[in-house]
């Protein structure tokens, strides 16, 4: 952990991303303490911002600020879980393809070619429309379709690692494939996987926002994307009620930016290390 923190503070960008994400995480965890109102409590609808309701109220009289704070739980959870699924699939396939080569590699690359080629959103729309609208289905749909780039990066890294002397040494000592993959190769892919995970969460959050914007979100667990969906479809946008659609949009932007920032390698430290 201390090593990780040292890593993070080595790059200002990463540090900034880390701070942003900690803020969002505390917002999500402390939602009941921070929200001024119960997000499901209905009052008078379409109120403009006032000291009582800092961001006004929506079409059924929910306090928008409280809804916004509670929605951070849903958006972050979906992004995180979908990112986890996609990184797990991507890493496993990348490791297998790079280590075993042969037909496994051909198959994995062919499948990832197909998945990369298919326009993601229309397919996700169909899947999400067939499945019942729930948070978990969105996690599954997004997670199952976002693993390709991870697979490719892990795959090419494994190809490099496999030829390195320490892997050969381990093999000559009689280590099995499973041991080598877990203890030598996976460990050395760690940084790539960490970076790819942050990017996967960022993409998953953006994709979830698009699906929710189309009205395919979970009606019981409102996310930021879904708040914008309601603002758009129930007159908030047409009536220029920016306090309804802009804050959730900015929340998406900033949290995604946080994930992108922690995935960036400290360019300068990296270069000096090489020299």
């Amino acid at each position: 952990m201390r090593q990780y923190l040292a890593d993070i503070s080595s790059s200002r960008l990463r540090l900034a991303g880390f701070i942003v994400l900690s803020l969002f995480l505390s917002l999500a965890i402390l939602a009941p303490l921070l929200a001024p109102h119960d997000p499901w409590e209905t009052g008078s609808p379409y109120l403009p911002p006032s000291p009582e309701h800092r961001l006004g109220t929506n079409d059924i009289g929910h306090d928008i600020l409280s809804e916004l704070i509670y929605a951070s739980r849903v958006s972050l959870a979906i992004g995180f879980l979908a990112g986890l699924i996609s990184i797990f699939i991507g890493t496993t396939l990348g490791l297998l393809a790079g280590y075993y080569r042969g037909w496994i590699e051909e198959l994995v690359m062919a499948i990832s070619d197909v998945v990369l080629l298919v326009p993601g959103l229309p397919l996700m729309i169909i899947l999400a429309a067939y499945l019942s609208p729930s948070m978990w289905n969105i996690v599954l749909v997004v997670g199952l379709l976002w693993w390709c780039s991870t697979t490719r990066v892990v795959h090419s890294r494994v190809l490099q690692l496999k030829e390195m002397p320490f892997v050969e040494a381990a093999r000559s000592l009689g280590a099995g494939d499973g041991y080598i993959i877990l203890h030598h190769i996976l460990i050395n892919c760690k940084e790539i996987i960490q970076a790819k995970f942050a990017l996967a969460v960022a993409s998953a959050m953006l994709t979830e926002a698009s699906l929710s914007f189309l009205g395919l979100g979970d009606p019981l667990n409102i996310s930021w994307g879904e708040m914008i969906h309601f603002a758009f479809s129930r007159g908030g946008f047409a009536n220029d009620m920016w306090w309804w659609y802009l804050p959730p949009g900015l929340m998406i932007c900033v949290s995604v930016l946080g994930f992108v920032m922690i995935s960036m390698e400290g360019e300068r430290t990296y270069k000096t290390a090489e020299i």
Partner: protein
Amino acid sequence: MSGRKAYILGKLIRYAFTFILILSLNFALPRMMPGDPIVNLLGEEALHNDPRMIELLRAEHGLDKPLHIQFSGYLRSLARMDLGYSIHKNLSVAELMANSLFWTLLLVFPSVVIGSIMALLFGSLAGFKNNSLIDYLLTALALLFYTCPSFLLAMLFLSIFAFHLGLFPLGNLTSGGREGLDYALDVAWHLFLPVAALSLLGASYKFLVVRNSVTQIFDEQFIVAARAKGLTERCILLRHVIRNVLPPFISMVALSFGFMVSGALIVEIVFSLNGMGTLIYDAVVARDYPVMQGCFLVLTVFVMAANFAADMLYAVADPRIGGNDN
């Protein structure tokens, strides 16, 4: 066989394989997803019909027959350009899409071209002037567009430039009642904001990639050699750097077609343009599955065609492919 022919053949096989997989997926989805397959095939509106009618429709779609017969029937109807029937809209899916596809392509193509040119220009500039003020500015801007959800950017553009400043129309494709050049200019005026939003969204990611690869290439030995020869920086950038960035850039642009189509769907909805996005949106609201599936199939075929074209272009841009036959 010469290198280029082998390359093209390999690509053709790969695309044929992908196409078959997409068809199978489109066939399998309504039949294996939860819910009654007849509803999945016809849309939720089908349930309002009387039960005897539904039984008739079930027989017509061959849902009582074995799967391989259903599949060959599915392929045969596709060969007749029959993509199913939307009970909700009371039109065949192919008819519904005929117009929409044109407008979506009219939105996607200029955006891909403009976005790519912007990414290539600014990306090489930022990579060339690595760690300068202009690099930081451009990168920050690209990150901003990259993290902004497509619908938010579209909504902001619409709100600022059309609603508050009144420079552009609030939506739709034309004002109507015009002909000839006037009509074309009117459409261009209506499409300006959507194309601008989509171009920026598409350019952001490509910019970041181009910038990184240009920065990396500048560290290579052959650039040092070119400098030692006394070439000007301008000449190095144009002749040595861009030349090396181009092939991977083309394949990135090709792969981005899927993303651009997805973005176009969202942008269309915000600007209420009558394209595939609006069609899909209506279909989602009404759970009109045949329309969704038809749109998915057509968009996928389009993205595949664009990728295939780009792969052919790649063979031209990268002299290593098929270089031995001339």
